[in-house]
C-alpha cells in the first residue's frame, strides 16, 4: 500500500531532474501523475523511461505562460478526474546580470516563469481543491528564497516572493483541508544547473567549480543535495498524514540557511 494511493498529482517542469524525481516517487507511492514541460519530445522520452503505463501522462506546458499553466491544471482534472496534489516545480535562473544591468525582458521572464507560474498554478489548483475540501500544494522555492548571491537578482527576488505567497495561501485555506508549503533546496546538480550555471559563473567572474563551491561550502554537508532528498520531502508533504503541515518553508539544503 503506497503512501499516495489513489491520489492524482500534477507537476510542472517534470520531464527531468527534481520534477521528474518527484513524479517517480509519487508513482512509486501509488499516485497517478501528470508530468509536464515545454518539449513534447522530452515528455515522450520521460514517459518511456518512467515506464509507468497509464499512471503517468504528459501534457505540454510552457510554465511561463498563464494560459498553458491553467490548461495544464484543468487538463489534469480532465485526464485523471480530479486533482489532489499540485507541485509547482518549474522555474529557473536565466540571464544572470547585476541589477544595474538587468533588462526588462529577462526580469519579466523570470517573474512569469518563477512567481507568476506558481501563482497561476496555485489559483487554478485551488479552484478544484476548495470544492473537494482537500489538497496539497507544494511550491519549489530555493535556499535563494532566503539568501542572496550577486547577479541572480531576478531568481532570488522570485523565490523570496514565492515564500511569501505560500504563507499567505496557507492561511487562506488552512481550515479547508488544503495545505500549501514550499521546499527550499540547496544546490542540486540538475540539468538546469548545467545549462545555466556556466553563464552565471561567467557573469560572477568565477569558474564553474568556484561557483559550485559558493553554493556548497556554506552548507554543513559540503556537497550538493540530491533530487531524491527533495522528492522524499515532497512525498511527506503530499500525504494525508501531513494535514497539519502548512505554510512551512521546508529546507533541503544541507544546513546552509541558518534561519
Amino acid at each position, binding site marked *: 500500500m503506497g503512501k499516495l494511493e489513489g491520489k492524482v498529482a500534477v507537476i510542472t517542469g517534470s520531464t527531468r531532474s527534481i520534477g521528474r524525481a518527484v513524479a517517480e516517487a509519487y508513482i512509486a507511492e501509488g499516485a497517478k501523475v501528470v508530468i509536464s514541460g515545454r518539449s513534447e519530445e522530452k515528455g515522450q522520452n520521460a514517459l518511456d523511461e518512467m515506464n509507468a503505463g497509464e499512471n503517468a501522462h504528459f501534457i505540454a506546458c510552457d510554465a511561463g505562460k498563464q494560459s498553458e499553466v491553467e490548461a495544464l491544471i484543468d487538463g489534469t482534472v480532465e485526464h485523471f478526474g480530479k486533482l489532489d496534489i499540485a507541485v509547482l516545480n518549474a522555474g529557473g535562473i536565466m540571464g544572470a546580470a547585476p541589477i544595474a544591468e538587468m533588462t526588462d525582458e529577462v526580469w519579466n521572464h523570470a517573474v512569469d516563469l518563477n512567481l507568476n507560474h506558481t501563482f497561476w498554478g496555485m489559483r487554478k489548483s485551488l479552484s478544484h481543491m476548495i470544492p473537494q475540501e482537500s489538497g496539497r500544494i507544494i511550491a519549489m522555492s530555493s535556499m535563494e528564497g532566503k539568501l542572496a548571491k550577486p547577479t541572480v537578482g531576478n531568481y532570488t527576488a522570485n523565490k523570496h516572493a514565492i515564500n511569501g505567497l505560500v*504563507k499567505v495561501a*496557507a*492561511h487562506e*485555506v*488552512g*481550515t479547508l483541508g488544503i495545505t500549501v508549503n514550499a521546499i527550499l533546496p*540547496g544546490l542540486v546538480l540538475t540539468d538546469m544547473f548545467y545549462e545555466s550555471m556556466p553563464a552565471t559563473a561567467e557573469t560572477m567572474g568565477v569558474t564553474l567549480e568556484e561557483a559550485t563551491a559558493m553554493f556548497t561550502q556554506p*552548507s*554543513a*554537508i*559540503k*556537497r550538493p*543535495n*540530491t533530487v*531524491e*532528498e527533495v*522528492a*522524499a*520531502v515532497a512525498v*511527506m508533504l503530499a*500525504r494525508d*498524514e*501531513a*494535514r*497539519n*503541515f*502548512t*505554510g*512551512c*518553508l*521546508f*529546507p*533541503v*539544503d*544541507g*544546513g*546552509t*540557511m*541558518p*534561519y
Partner: protein
Amino acid sequence: MGELDGRVACVTGGTRGIGRAIAEAFLDEGAQVVINGRSPEKGEQALSEVGAGESLHFIAGDVTQQEVCESLIDQTVEHFGKIDIMVNNAGGGGEAAPLAEMSDEIWNYVLNWNLNHPMWCMRRALKHMIPQEWGRIINISSMYGKTVIPTNSHYVTTKHGLNGLTKVVAHEVGTMGITVNALCPGGILTDVMNEQGPVAAEALGMEFQAFLDMMAEPSAIKRLNEVEDVALVSVLLASEAGAGITGSLINVDGGQVPY
C-alpha cells in the same frame, strides 16, 4: 521493508506524548527503540501498550541529570549494540513567572531539562556516531524556540538555545554522515500540556482553554498540532533520504511561525 530497518534509536521522554508517537513510528519502520522516562511504572505501561516485544526497551532515568543522560546512551549501545538515531524529546516548562520573579531553582531546572539534556545526550551519542560515520540527531524544540510567550523566559530561552546548538553541531559533523535537526512544534495536547498548561495559563491570567486557543488561533489550521505530526517528520529525517537535511529548524506548527 521499513525505512528504518536495522536502525537503533533512543528517545528521551518516550513513554508518553510526542516521544511515544515517535518511538511507535520508528518501530513501524523497522527500528529498534529505547524509550526513556523517569517513572519505571509508566515505562512498563508503555512497553505493554505498544506491544513491540524485544524491539522496544525501556530505560528509567531523569534526564535533568548529566550522568543519567550519558548512561542512557551507553546503555542503549549496550542493549542493542549501537545507536543510530538520538531523539532529544524530553523537556517542558516549569512554574511560569515574569523574569523579575523567576527563581534560580526553576530556571536551573528548565535549563537542565531543555538545553543541557540535549547537549549531554548529543555529545555522548556523537562518540558512537562519529566512528560509525552515520547518525541522526533530532532535537524536539518548539515554536517558542523562534517566537515568544511572556512569563516563560526559562522555556523560551532554552528552546532558542537548543535551536542554536542544533545549527552548530550540524556544521561540526556535517561531512561525517550525521545530521542534526530541530523540530519546532506548535501547541499539542500532550499529558505534559494537560499537567503544565493550566499553571502556565494561570500565570497569564487566563483559563486553560483560552490558553490552548491562544496557541491554535495564530496558525493557518486553527487547531492544535498532534503528536503524529512530529512523528511523521521525524521518520523522514531519520531515514536514508534525510541525509541532505541538517541544521534545519523545521516548523510543525500548522503555519504559525512565518520564518
